[in-house]
């Protein structure tokens, strides 16, 4: 495990025209093997922070260093998006291809894989998530839980080094939610997880940070959610 952070943020600020300052000189880092819970009230700017990390929004000031390089323009963020898989809040935003297979293969094809490679990768990813047999299904006819797993497959098919999960357990029933937790626990990637679901985070997160009044504060183990330590998790 290298101690160099995968993603590092220094003095990041962001202001919405009407909402005012949502991030005020925020510092943050994500290391290999960590699963960081990002919590905070509705509208605190959690999603904004993730969007900034992959360049969907541009910071007013501050530095983003991802995978060892400073990132500041659209060009440099394209590489970040390929290496940091972003799972959106609403699966319907993410599943835009008519069939499941096309959707899962969309990422790998964009990364320049050949059709055969992309297809194989898509099938393997679906199989590894227990979603084999869904290849030809029509995306908008899936159930909420199925949509969530397919979006996860679509992100994982790009073989990312980091996962950014924006309220992944939203609107899932308890079975689908547990299936998601079990799946995420087996994944080796470092993660940032936005969630309001304390139990969900307790089962996954190795540490927690919380956004409050535009500042990002670490939460000591045991004060907030019941957090498992990274060492224990990787023993």
């Amino acid at each position, binding site marked *: 495990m290298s101690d160099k952070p995968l993603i590092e943020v220094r003095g990041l600020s962001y202001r919405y025209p009407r909402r005012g300052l949502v991030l005020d000189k925020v510092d943050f880092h994500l290391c290999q093997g960590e699963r960081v819970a990002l919590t905070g009230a509705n509208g605190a700017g959690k999603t904004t922070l993730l*969007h900034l990390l*992959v360049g*969907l929004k541009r910071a007013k000031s501050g530095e983003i260093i991802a995978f060892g390089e400073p990132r500041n323009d659209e060009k440099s963020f*394209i590489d970040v*998006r*390929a290496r940091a*898989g*972003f799972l*959106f809040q*609403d699966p*319907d*935003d*993410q599943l*835009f*291809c*008519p*069939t499941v*297979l*096309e959707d899962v*293969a*969309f*990422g790998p*094809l*964009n*990364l320049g894989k050949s*059709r055969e490679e*992309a*297809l194989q990768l898509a099938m393997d990813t679906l199989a590894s998530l227990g979603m084999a047999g869904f290849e030809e299904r*029509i*995306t*908008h*006819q899936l159930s909420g839980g199925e949509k969530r797993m397919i979006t996860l497959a*679509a*992100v994982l098919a*790009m073989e990312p080094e980091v996962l950014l999960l924006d309220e992944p357990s939203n609107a899932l029933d308890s079975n689908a939610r547990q299936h998601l937790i079990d799946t995420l626990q087996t994944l080796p990637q470092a993660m940032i997880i936005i969630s309001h679901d304390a139990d969900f985070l307790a089962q996954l997160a190795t540490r927690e940070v919380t956004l409050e009044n535009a500042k990002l504060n670490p939460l000591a183990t045991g004060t907030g959610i019941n957090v498992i330590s990274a060492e224990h998790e990787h023993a």
Partner: protein
Amino acid sequence: MPQFLEHSGTSWKGQKVKHDLSVIDKLDPRLRVIMVTLFAFVTVLSENFFVLGVGVLVGLLLALLAQLNLKRTLRRVIAMDMFMIFLVILLPFTTPGEALFTVAGVSASKAGLLHALMILLKAHAVVLSLLALVGTLSATTLGHALAHLRVPDKLVHLLLFTVRYLDVIGQEYKRMRRAMQARAFVLRTDMHTWRSIGYLIGMLLVHSVERSERIMDAMKCRGYKGRFYLFDDMALGADDYRFMALFIPLLCILVGLNFL
């Protein structure tokens, strides 16, 4: 909005016309699109009643071959007829020519009646063949077939995205509409109703724009660079050549009959 309009307006899921599996389903989608286009041109450009009669028969035959569900097909054909009925009724009275009969002092011409009949035959021939050959494709397959036929990418994407998100937007509309009903909103002919419906449509537009922005973001996150990739290879098989061997001579005969 009345119940039946809400249904047809928002609940279409990009599905094909209900039908049992048939010989038509074995044909290459591209071939079906091309053949039906040619057939439509041949019928529409003809001015010969015999040709048009044969055209309608061919349309019926295709519909039978495609095992179309009778009730649903009839409903669609009638929907088109409702569209044309005024034209058919008015045409005899507006076309000058030999008077056939008079209604309330206005005379109907024979030329107009024949013209109306001709339009009716053309429309039915084309609609039946379209429902049989293209209506039995799912919208997605149709999009892919068009893409393989080198129809501009933008149009194909427009079709595919429409298929994908029509239902999502429809759901959003229904959700808001239900929320309105839950607060005792009923349609009336007053300012309040107009304003509320205006808000509803406005919100639907705002939501759709925001959703499209999120979709664009999601696509960027997966490395989208302005290109889509299609998976299905479409290849012509023995059935396709057999169909062509029957259909192309038929089209030639139909064209030839015009000049007899």
